[in-house]
């Protein structure tokens, strides 16, 4: 039987020759990811169910990356990180990235591949819906709740339903000023916020080869915004080079069988895509930038697992170089590595940090999730009033970045930067 990449990975993880959509199967996990918001509850479930002295199923399998509420005075947020620390010590876990130390990373989904925890063909469960990001490297990766995570922590297994697949074939090349974010906002706009519910979103086509690993992460990151169970792109030589540079662990990549049946198939000519936004309050409210240049903004936000990678800041800097922003512009690198890249990456001899400072952006914040999800009241960049924000993040739900009065437009780093300069939604192609 011919199978999709998702079906093949799940079949292998279940020890079966084949599976089909709708099968309920127990699969073996390679990695369980958790963070400061869901880790303490997961640990609570694990101990309640397996006993106070229980040991995790695999010390190397559990990856804990605190990232959500780091730079806040909130007492409970700090208590939660202490719970993680204590657990890591008790279980002697090698993969913990402690805030306040040189080992701190930042946003888990950018740190995961960066630290070599994402490998093609593997199964990753994470207590965060954007765990789907890791499909960008050809893994099956999906978000789960604390109870399921507590179960995985103790057993290394989870009962899951094999998803149907929606296949998006991306052909051709993006035009200048158009990015991976524009691809995924277009796709979500087309299928709707529940259009991929329970389904795998698989991206293939000759356009993939040109996309960087970070571009692919941007695309898979937002699969959940269409309700997808996972986003996935088969690995290629770029993926393998990226992974091999970061880990010695062996892995066996998997690809879809040619013409494996899917629930729905859409084809895109990338050269026809344009810079776009998702309007408040849902990620599927697609609009071309050129149709929304009348929208006045009060702030711009560049950060998160979707739009806070080094390539995202390079794009923003290309637009802002030699210009001034006209609204408050918040920059939050996803990880420490990205923060370092802001100093080392240069455009025409000028570092990104210098370009942003000259453009009048606010001082760059230390890496974390920050205002992507609002967070405690003292969070950097949190929208506390009726702000109108253009943001490189992934969600524009009511209240997502703080106040319910705030309106959030999702966009690419190019579009966010161009709009920060213009003070209204602006077409980045005029700035490049």
């Amino acid at each position, binding site marked *: 039987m011919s199978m999709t990449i998702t079906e093949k990975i799940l079949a292998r993880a279940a020890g079966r020759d084949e599976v089909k959509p*709708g099968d309920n199967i127990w699969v073996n996990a390679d990695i369980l990811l958790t963070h400061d918001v869901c880790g303490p509850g997961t640990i609570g*479930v694990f101990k309640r169910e397996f006993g106070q002295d229980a040991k995790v199923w695999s010390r190397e399998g559990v990856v804990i990356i605190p990232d959500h509420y780091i730079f806040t005075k909130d007492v409970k947020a700090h208590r939660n990180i202490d719970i993680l620390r204590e657990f890591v010590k008790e279980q002697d876990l090698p993969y913990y990235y402690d805030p306040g130390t040189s080992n701190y990373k930042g946003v888990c989904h950018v740190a995961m591949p960066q630290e070599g925890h994402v490998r093609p063909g593997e199964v990753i469960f994470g207590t965060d819906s954007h765990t789907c990001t890791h499909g960008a490297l050809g893994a099956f990766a999906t978000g789960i709740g604390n109870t399921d995570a507590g179960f995985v922590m103790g057993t290394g297994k989870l009962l899951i339903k094999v998803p149907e697949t929606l296949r998006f074939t991306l052909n051709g090349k993006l035009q200048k000023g158009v990015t991976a974010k524009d691809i995924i906002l277009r796709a979500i706009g087309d299928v709707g916020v529940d259009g991929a519910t329970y389904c795998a979103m698989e991206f293939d086509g000759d356009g993939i080869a040109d996309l960087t690993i970070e571009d692919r992460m941007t695309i898979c990151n937002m699969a959940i915004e269409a309700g997808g169970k996972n986003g996935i792109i088969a690995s290629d030589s770029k993926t393998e080079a990226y992974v091999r540079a970061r880990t010695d662990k062996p892995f066996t990549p998997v690809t879809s069988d040619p013409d494996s049946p899917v629930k729905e198939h859409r084809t895109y000519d990338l050269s026809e895509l344009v810079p776009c936004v998702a309007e408040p309050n849902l990620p599927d409210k697609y609009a071309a930038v050129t149709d929304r240049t009348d929208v006045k903004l009060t702030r711009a936000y560049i950060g998160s697992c979707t739009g806070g990678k080094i390539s995202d800041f390079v794009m923003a800097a290309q637009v802002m170089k030699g210009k001034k922003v006209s609204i408050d512009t918040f920059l939050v690198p996803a990880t420490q590595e990205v923060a370092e890249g802001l100093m080392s990456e240069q455009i025409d001899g000028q570092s990104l940090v210098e370009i942003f400072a000259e453009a009048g952006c606010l001082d760059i914040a230390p890496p974390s999730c920050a205002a992507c999800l609002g967070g405690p009241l003292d969070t950097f960049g949190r929208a506390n009033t009726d702000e109108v924000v253009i943001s490189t993040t992934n*969600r524009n739900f009511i209240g997502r970045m703080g106040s*319910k009065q705030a309106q959030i437009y999702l966009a690419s780093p190019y579009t966010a930067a161009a709009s920060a300069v213009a003070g209204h939604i602006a077409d980045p192609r005029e700035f490049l």
Partner: protein
Amino acid sequence: MSDTPPVITGTVYVVGDNIDTDQIIPAQYLNLVPTIPEEYKKLGSYALIGLPEACPPFVEEGQMESAFPIVIAGRNFGCGSSREHAPIALGAAGVKAVVAESYARIFFRNAVATGELYPMESEIRLADVFQTGDAATLDIGAGTLTAGDGTVYSTKPIGDVAPVVSAGGIFAYARETGMIGTDSQ
């Protein structure tokens, strides 16, 4: 969840489509850890506090629980994050069941895995039929929601997850089916 599917009678709270987890429990309350009993209760007091201001309060100010045991919703209820705090906040507030036109996958799964509430799907859209404060009786076993005027609406069979729900969540199911030992508490 108990062995016999319950019959729930009370007033309903009605919401529309795409009620995301940020509206069910906004991020600023995610510092609360659901497995710590006082914090579990506190999560309940904040359930649905992220709805637009025009909506009637789901939990009255100063109360820990809601007066509405049943939530009726449109499509894609619980979309967004994987935070289990969402079904837990509703469960802690005293919600026994949600009757929605459809669910986001992770919310549905978390509701089942935790046993916090029954995520029922309605055959037809009920968000336009009921109004907040209407009386109703939900018979989980029979798959019916009966309005105050006696009109009966059916809910869909709970499907593949039925064995997990009737066992009482993922741990109980795994023990029943021998996937994990029964000796751990």
